[in-house]
């Protein structure tokens, strides 16, 4: 691509690891997952290169030092790339042949969802039209997160400018050296919309004794258990906090939700559980915001959450989804295997076979049938 000018949606996105270009970011992410973030042992697709490296280390006990299928100089597993996010400014610039870092639109775009969330580190999934890719928590851990707050990463290229609400107020943070992945932007009320509609796992707790959580404890754990989900039961408590009190701009919450896994329709979550309050437990936002990467308070959840136990922060556990293919169900995959193929031409044969089988079973069952 010769002249890369931020032209918003028209520009093509490209892969940091191998420089290939794609029509839109969704396809780019799919490509990255399949080519760069895929475990070479079990073929599981992770969400980032770093996540893949950790997976290979923990599960297969092997060390991965280079990103598969990457060009020289782009093989580090340390740098956090997801779609177009995380690409260092200099690399971006050289790709396009010109540096352009004051277009607020991209930032806005990313911000949008973020703002709703009130900042925090929201894995790019937010707002970025992403398709059904659940943002694996793997991502979070590594996010460098904007130190202390939300800076809007100057995105040189117009990325998805279609966000209507581009928050103009984005002060051109053009100078940001490091791309903070979560351009959270002026969030006044970081309403961390809870990432998850779900409630905290109230259930796993042994029956007796969870009364506290019984009522609408909307606190739901973010979908990505980035948060210390592992210890769910106890955790619930903090989350059970009277969310209702949070009456932050709920609307944002919904946004956040959407960010999560693919489908934008998170709105639904808003209805979740919280009696009367559209707001979603901030907790969730925490999870995102804090992400594992948070080195601590710096990224921290937006100031909002007062009653949320920061427990969410140290995203400790990596979350491994046994079935992570959002595009197809297990049955569809299974049916695509050769042994299950059903061809139309064969349907005639099948009915003949079926007739034969039927006759066989009839005779077989004749002896057994009681009636």
């Amino acid at each position, binding site marked *: 691509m010769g002249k890369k000018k931020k032209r918003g949606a028209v520009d093509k996105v490209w892969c940091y690891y191998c420089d290939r270009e794609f029509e839109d970011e969704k396809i780019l992410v799919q490509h990255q997952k399949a080519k760069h973030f895929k475990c070479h042992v079990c073929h599981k697709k992770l969400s980032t290169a770093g996540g893949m490296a950790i997976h290979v280390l923990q599960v297969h006990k092997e060390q991965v030092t280079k990103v598969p299928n990457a060009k020289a100089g782009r093989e580090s597993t340390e740098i956090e790339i997801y779609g177009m996010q995380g690409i260092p400014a200099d690399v971006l610039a050289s790709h396009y042949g010109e540096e352009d870092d004051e277009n607020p639109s991209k930032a806005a775009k990313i911000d949008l969802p973020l703002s709703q969330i009130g900042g925090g580190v929201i894995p790019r999934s937010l707002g970025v039209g992403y398709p059904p890719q659940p943002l694996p928590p793997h991502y979070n851990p590594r996010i460098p997160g904007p130190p202390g707050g939300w800076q809007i990463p100057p995105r040189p290229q117009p990325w998805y400018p279609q966000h209507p609400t581009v928050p103009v107020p984005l002060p051109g943070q053009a100078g940001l050296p490091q791309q903070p992945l979560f351009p959270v932007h002026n969030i006044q009320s970081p309403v961390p919309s809870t990432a998850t509609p779900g409630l905290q796992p109230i259930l796993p707790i042994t029956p007796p004794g969870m009364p506290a959580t019984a009522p609408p404890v909307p606190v739901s754990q973010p979908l990505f258990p980035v948060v210390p989900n592992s210890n769910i039961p106890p955790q619930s408590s903090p989350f059970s906090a009277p969310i209702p009190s949070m009456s932050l701009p709920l609307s944002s919450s919904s946004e956040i939700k959407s960010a999560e896994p693919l489908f934008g329709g998170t709105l639904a979550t808003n209805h979740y559980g919280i009696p009367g309050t559209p707001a979603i437990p901030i907790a969730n936002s925490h999870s995102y915001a804090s992400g594992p990467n948070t080195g601590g308070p710096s990224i921290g959840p937006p100031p909002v959450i007062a009653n949320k136990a920061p427990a969410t922060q140290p995203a400790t556990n990596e979350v491994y989804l046994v*079935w992570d293919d959002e595009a197809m169900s297990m049955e569809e995959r*299974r049916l695509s295997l050769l042994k299950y193929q059903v061809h139309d031409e064969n*349907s005639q044969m*099948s009915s003949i076979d079926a007739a034969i089988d039927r006759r066989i079973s009839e005779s077989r069952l004749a002896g057994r049938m009681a009636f």
Partner: protein
Amino acid sequence: MASAPPPSTGRELLSPPTDGISNLRFSNHSDHLLVSSWDKSVRLYDATANALRGEFMHGGAVLDCCFHDDTSGFSASADHTVRRLVFNYNREDVLGRHDGPVRCIEYSYATGQVITGSWDKTLKCWDPRSSSGQDRSLVGTYTQPERVYSMSLVGNRLVVATAGRHVNVYDLRNMSQPEQRRESSLKYQTRCVRCYPNGTGYALSSVEGRVAMEFFDLSETGQSKKYAFKCHRKSEAGRDIVYPVNAIAFHPIYGTFATGGCDGYVNVWDGNNKKRLYQYTKYPTSIAALSFSRDGRLLAVASSYTYEEGDKTHEPDAIFVRSVNEVEVKPKPKMLPNPAS
């Protein structure tokens, strides 16, 4: 029956299918169990006698089945056909076809119609009383936003869950358009949807170890009762392994429900108290389907690898029928006032 106590998993059915089990259902009239399988068969068992009573072969994997009454049933196959199966005479005929694999099938006693959902993104209603042949029995075709993944009926309501996390709620008396067009509250792919026996809502499970409890009443009060919970997860070595929740089955009398996941466990939950009541001993492999008998005394568990990790060697697919004890499924007295009320 042996005098020895049944194994902790329940009694294993003899002559199980030779490949994975896609679904199993108890009859509303007896303890007959209808089982559909990837080995292209639908089998009818007498669960108490532990005997195979009938077998019907199809042109492709059978993805779902249901009873009509104790003498006949219906099946949904990957070979695109919807078939009626007459048990006594071991006869079957094709009621109709879809343009793609038929994934779900239900029979509505209220309307006397068979409803099927397919990956061809449509729902079709059939009248089984007409003579067979697609043209005669097809009552209507209703386009869905995406491929149909799961369906459930209660009274006059039908809930359809599709790919893309869409959920359509229909009133069977007026199928021209959905009564409600919703989206799953869960962020991940929908696995299974089941209506509460009391008809007030439905439970929906996803591939991300989570179940959402939803209500049809769209008012503020109605929606305030909804919630979701995590389940079928395992935490080890610093990571959380999250399993798809493949099956949900409601106890016909108590209204509590069991969930089965790829982790091989069956959990029983009390939806009102939001607690888990019981967890059965782990089964050899993933739980593909669950069904309570009409009196709630038996629970059929299909322990059948669901290919969540591709084609690989796995424990043999089996069906276990266990007797259900009251303590496992009976809700405890309420500890707190029900916020919903």
